């Protein structure tokens, strides 16, 4: 389960719409409590150096900046978000193969339908598992 501040959801959706028709991407900062629940309280949009409607690649310098910003905020990077412009918010085979960290949370913003959808996944050992997203207002 992830706890997601409403403003972070708004930022991810806005970034996805701004990036359309290309995929948008960015990092997520937050903290994990003793029960393993992650609270996401920061969003770091990054340049998609793949500049593609089907692929994303986080700009390495943006990744470094996000990592430092999260550390300065007393948190850490806990996941990544990206958009799917024409398909549902489910990890693609490429997402699964290239998932960089089994401890991370993988948030998908789908622009397939009229209303964008936001879903979160764990990706471990080539397997995906959706997790609840609980909005914090």
């Amino acid at each position, binding site marked *: 389960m992830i706890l997601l501040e409403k403003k972070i959801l708004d930022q991810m959706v806005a970034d996805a719409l701004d990036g359309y028709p290309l995929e948008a991407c960015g990092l997520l900062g937050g903290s994990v409590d003793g029960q393993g629940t992650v609270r996401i309280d920061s969003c770091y949009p990054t340049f998609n150096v793949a500049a593609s409607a089907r692929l994303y690649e986080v700009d*390495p310098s943006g990744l470094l900046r996000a990592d430092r910003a999260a550390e300065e905020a007393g948190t850490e990077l806990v996941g990544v978000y990206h958009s799917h412009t024409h398909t549902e918010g489910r990890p693609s085979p490429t997402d699964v193969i290239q998932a960089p960290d089994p401890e991370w949370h993988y948030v998908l913003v789908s622009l397939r339908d009229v209303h964008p959808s936001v879903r979160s996944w764990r990706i471990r050992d080539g397997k995906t598992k959706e997790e609840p997203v609980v909005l914090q207002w």
Partner: protein
Amino acid sequence: MPVDVRLPTILRAAAGGQATVEAEGATVGEVFDDLIRQHPGLRDQLLTTDGELHRHLNIYLNDDDIRYLGKLDAKVDVHDTVTLMPAVAGG
């Protein structure tokens, strides 16, 4: 003098759970050699079997990507920080 090497979460298990470790060397390659001496489990996650950098790993010397500083030959100095980050990509 050792330099600080910051590890991403995925590499920390191979380094005793530490987020930052110290390693010695005059170049990034020598720092990696020392790092691998201390934590042999990191070897295959840092370098290919040919001793080259993995494509899926980004390595920064302070603010700069070492691909633009001579890769493993990049010179390091006291107070420098080497930061390792996974490449983040998908489809």
